[in-house]
């Protein structure tokens, strides 16, 4: 799994690509969110468009990231969910917990 972070319009965009699964991808996601928070980011957008597989550990990391960002007064939102990621969030009723956007411009605008 590869993960990149960049900044646009005051928002930190975290873009994991590949598998967010136990032992590898979940740890990388946790570190990326932690680094963003430590750097002062409070508006975080996770772009899941390049994610091929996510398991319960990956979902758990998204939930942990959401809680960590919220506890610091920030917002964590999701964008570009592949259908299988949407499905797995729906099964555990987490789709209603996250604010989900269909495209990047709409997601960025939602922070302002």
């Amino acid at each position, binding site marked *: 799994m590869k993960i990149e972070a960049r900044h646009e319009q005051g928002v930190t965009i975290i873009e994991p690509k590949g*598998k967010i*699964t*136990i*032992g*590898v991808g979940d740890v990388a996601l946790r570190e990326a969110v932690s680094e963003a928070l430590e750097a002062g980011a409070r508006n975080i957008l996770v772009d899941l468009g390049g994610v091929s*597989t996510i*398991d*319960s*550990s990956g*979902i*758990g*990391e998204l*939930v*942990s990231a*959401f*809680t960590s960002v919220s506890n610091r007064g920030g917002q964590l939102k999701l964008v570009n969910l592949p259908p*299988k990621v949407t499905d*797995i969030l729906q*099964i*555990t*009723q*987490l789709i209603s*917990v996250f604010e989900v956007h269909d495209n990047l411009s709409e997601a960025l605008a939602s922070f302002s």
Partner: protein
Amino acid sequence: MPVEEPQVRISIGSRFEHIDLIQVVVDDALERLGLDDDSRHWVGIAIREAVANAIKHGNRQDPDKEVEVELAIIGDQAIIRVVDQGEGFDLQEVEDPLAPENLLKPNGRGIFYMSNFMDEIEYSSRPEGGTVVTLRKQIAGIRTD
């Protein structure tokens, strides 16, 4: 003709990085049996969850303890067995991940996902120790030739 002997049998040390190897091998076997892409994805997630639980909760990530995975075809069912060498666990203690108080917990969704993606899950203990998780999935038009 039904195949009753395992088509795949693979053992790994208890390391999470080995899960990909199991998934590749089982996915290839399921593709040859005629399972479509979507079904293979979800069965693959269920197997990942079962093996991750065996490594984490069963074998407590002891790399000297093995996890064995078998894939067998009986009739029109794919049957996957995941066996660890751990102390076992009480299924009654597993919490409902949909309960409002659990919704934002980072853990506890693996068994729920397995139940959703497979037709049937069964847990049993071996007399010599360890837990056996048996996952069953019906495959329409299965190819056993």
